[in-house]
C-alpha cells in the first residue's frame, strides 16, 4: 500500500511536470475507478515506462576536444529526448490498455493542482479527476 501511495505521488508529479512549457497538462480518466485500482494501474504503467532504455547514439571520433564535446552534448540531448518520448508512449499505451482515456487540462487547473502543498490533498484532487463520470477538459488521442 505504501508503495502504491509512493508511486501515486510520483505519478502526480510526473503528470503535472510532463506538460510542455507552452501547452497544458493531461490526466487519465476512467469513470468510477477505485482509488486502489487507479494507484495500482499508475504504478504498473510507471514501472513499464521506467524500463525504457533508448539506444546509444554513436558519436564520431574527433581529436578536437571542443568538437567532441559539442557532438556529445547534442547526442545527449537526442538520447534524453528519445527516452522521454518512449516513456510517455509506454505510459499512454499502458493506461489506454487499462481502459483509461486521456484528457487535456488547462494551465489554470494545472496550477491549482500543483499549488496544493499537501500531498494527500493533491492526490485526492487528481483522483477526483481520474474517477469522474463527467471528465473535464478535451479528450486527447492515445
Amino acid at each position, binding site marked *: 500500500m505504501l508503495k502504491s501511495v509512493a508511486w501515486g505521488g510520483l505519478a502526480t508529479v510526473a503528470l503535472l511536470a510532463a506538460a510542455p512549457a507552452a501547452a497544458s497538462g493531461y490526466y487519465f480518466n476512467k469513470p468510477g475507478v477505485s482509488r486502489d485500482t487507479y494507484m495500482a494501474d499508475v504504478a504498473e504503467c510507471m514501472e513499464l515506462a521506467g*524500463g525504457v532504455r533508448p539506444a546509444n547514439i554513436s558519436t564520431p571520433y574527433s581529436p578536437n576536444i571542443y568538437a567532441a564535446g559539442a557532438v556529445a552534448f547534442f547526442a545527449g540531448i537526442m538520447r534524453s529526448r528519445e527516452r522521454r518520448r518512449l516513456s510517455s*508512449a509506454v505510459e499512454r499505451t499502458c493506461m489506454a490498455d487499462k481502459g483509461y482515456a486521456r484528457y487535456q487540462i*488547462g494551465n489554470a487547473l494545472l496550477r491549482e493542482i500543483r499549488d496544493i502543498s499537501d500531498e494527500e490533498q493533491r492526490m485526492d484532487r487528481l483522483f477526483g479527476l481520474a474517477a469522474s463520470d463527467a471528465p473535464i*477538459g*478535451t479528450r486527447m488521442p492515445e
Partner: protein
Amino acid sequence: VKLLARFMLWAGLATLVCVSAWASGPLREVPTILDPTKGYALVEIRNHDGGPQPGIVTFARYDPVDGDVRGGLRSPGSSLGRGVAVRVSAVRRSLLRNDERRLFLLELEPDIWVIEGAAGTAFSLGSLTFTVRAGEVLDLGVFSPRTDWPDGEGPTRLTAGRLVGMALLGPFARTPEPRPAMLEIRRRDTGDFPVPDSLASRIVPAQFNEGARFGNYLGGLVNRVNGREGRPGEQQPASPEEPPSEPVAENRD
C-alpha cells in the same frame, strides 16, 4: 603438475557447462540427432509490416507463479544464475529464408516460454506462453510482426521537405510518434515454408496460453501481443462530430 592438470580439467568442465548453457538459440540446420535434454521450436517469421526489414521476435523463460520473466523484478527468486540465457531472439541463423520470410529452428531449455516481444516492443501488457518439454519439437506457426497503428493512422512518407528539415534541425526536428509493434500469429499453411522432413514425424503444434504479463526488459515500447484489438476495455477517441467538453481553463498563462 598434477595440480595444474586437475585445474585444467575443472576449467574445461566449467567451460563445457557454460557453452552448453549458452548453446540454446536458433540453429542453422536441423541436427541429425536431436538433443534429448532440449526442446525445439519451429517458427516462421515474416518481414516487419511485410516490407524489406526482417521481423525479429524474442522469446524468454517465464515464471508463471510470480508473473514475470525469470529473474525479473517481480520474480527475483526464479533467476537462472550467471551465464544462463533467459531469452532467445530469432534474429540470425535461420534454416530457410527468402526476401519475405525466414524459418527458424530454436533449441530451447525445457521450461515455460513467453513471446517477450517483437521489433523492440515488449508484449508486457499481455502475451502468450507455451511449454517446451525435453525431446519435443513444437510448431509455433507463422508470426507476422507489424506496427499497431491506431485507427486513422498509418505509415508516414519520408518527403524531401521532411528530410531537409531533419538535416537542418538535427535533434530538434519533429519526429513521428513512436508506435508499438504487434504480432499476427497463425497456424502453418500450404503457402508457408514446409516443415523439414526429419522433423515432420515428431513435430506437434504448440499450445499457447494467454494472459502472461511481465516487465519491460527490452527497453522500448510495450503492447499486447495481439495489439489494441486484444484490449479488454478499449475506449475509442472522440469523433470530430462530438462536441468538445467544456474547457476548464485557458491554455495560456
